């Protein structure tokens, strides 16, 4: 088994703008159903949804001290909006989960293997 991070990337000001309350409710419902599926399949390890990037704070080493600044770290238009850690047999199985996630949350999902894997 391999653990993968499925990360949901949203483009600032793009994806979420024209969404009605009903659409929001639909997404929430779909995501709920999907997480249940992941859990009952034993694939779900951890997941989280993040607040908007302007709530981020960054710390970094600077001359032996730590410098704290306003975030986000990357000055880009694309930001991590949320993620799942799933356990899957292989990439195809991870991609099958990612396909369900992208259809539910309607943002692109990046699938990346975790470097440290749990001992079998």
């Amino acid at each position, binding site marked *: 088994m*391999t653990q*993968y991070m499925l990360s949901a990337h949203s483009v600032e000001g793009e994806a979420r703008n024209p969404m009605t309350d009903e659409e929001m409710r639909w997404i929430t419902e779909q995501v709920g159903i999907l997480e249940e599926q992941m859990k009952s399949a034993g694939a779900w390890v951890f997941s989280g949804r993040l607040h908007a990037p302007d709530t981020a704070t960054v710390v970094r080493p600077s001359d032996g001290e730590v410098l704290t600044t306003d975030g986000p770290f990357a000055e880009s238009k694309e930001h991590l909006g949320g993620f799942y850690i799933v356990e899957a*047999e*292989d*990439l*195809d199985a*991870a*991609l099958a989960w990612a396909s369900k996630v992208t259809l539910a949350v309607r943002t692109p999902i990046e*699938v*990346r*293997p975790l*470097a440290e894997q749990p001992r079998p």
Partner: protein
Amino acid sequence: MPVVDEALIGRLFREESGRSVATLIRIFGDIDLAEDAVQEAFAVALRKWPAEGLPPNAGGWITTTARKRAIDRLRRETRGRELLGEVAVLSPGNDDPGMPEVVGPVQDDRLRLIFTCCHPALSTEVQVALTLRLLGGLSTKEVARSFLVAEATMAQRLVRAKRKIKAARIPYRVPEDHELSDRLGPVLAVVYLVYNAGLSSPAEPGLCSEAIRLARILATLMPDEPEVAGLLALLLLTESRRASRMRPDGSLVLLGEQDRRRWDRSLIEEGQAIVRRCLRRNQPSTYQLQAAINAVHADAATVEQTDWPQIVALYDQLLAVAPTPVVALNRAIAIGEVQGPAAALALVDELRAERRGDFERGPPRHPCRGQEACHERGPAANICTARRTGMCNANMARSDPQHRAGAIAYQEMFMTVSTRGRTSENTPSTRLGE
């Protein structure tokens, strides 16, 4: 008894190494280990065979020797000994993985390997490179040459690809039936790209035969897939004309001007027989339809005797399943043969207005400009549209070598981009690296 020399062993390497590498990857789950072990086995063969003669089953000998080499290497490494434990678990009924295993014809590991190499998680370029390297037995240097990149660049690309396969666990298996429709496309596209790379670079004729060899393997291993048969037929029929499509100076001979007596009849017969079998199945799709178009051309003793209405009918079907500008242009050319140049030019103008963006991107624009140039000169009534289009391209090709690749695809009029998704953005007529 053939003389066992380096050339013979080299040829055996091309033919057999893919199968051995595929088998060893299944056993050890490690591409690098499999590649190295098979290389070593051939090095042993180079020492032994010239003196001792070929073993009865040279391929099996290579696989067995490579397997032993791999095990020897693993025994020397701590991590390797762990892996060997896993191998023993994975090989039921074979406690000692050092025992030579009978390589059966039933489950051919090469099929697994090509689906791994052509996994959609890898870029098209990497898919082609991996397929040539692992299944085709080409050296990194040879793969680099077909991409027009430095050997070190290609080596780096292959290393990264193999690292991704390992880290992301791209599976080593043949997709199940319900996945096959999505997964077969890239595999066929890769084989087609390899063929076209050979076709557009006369210095690499080996790529053409390599692609045909891969297509034959696929057709044997997946006899129930009509598009696999269609691809093989398309390649065989295209190959039948390869010798007559280029002059010694490298310039193109247009279809209408080719010496049809030089077309390879045995390849044509084989290709046409496959096309007939496909027709009986009646599940036409892009490769089968292109093969059928080629089969009709192959039937005609001269360009005038070509059954153009039949070709138009096939292009109608092709356009329905693959509505690309290239197919539309080729269809227009065929219509010109039936209804006259004016009908074709009207269609081309329509197309150009509709799909300007497509024509302005990538190689298809060159033929279109060629067409334009002809148009400006005014249509000569006695020269058919098809040949004029081809002629312009060939002329452009001569004056501008950069446009050669694009022009080559057009000279025979019925080359087309036939795959879905990302690959359809690429044009198989270009060199792989472009």
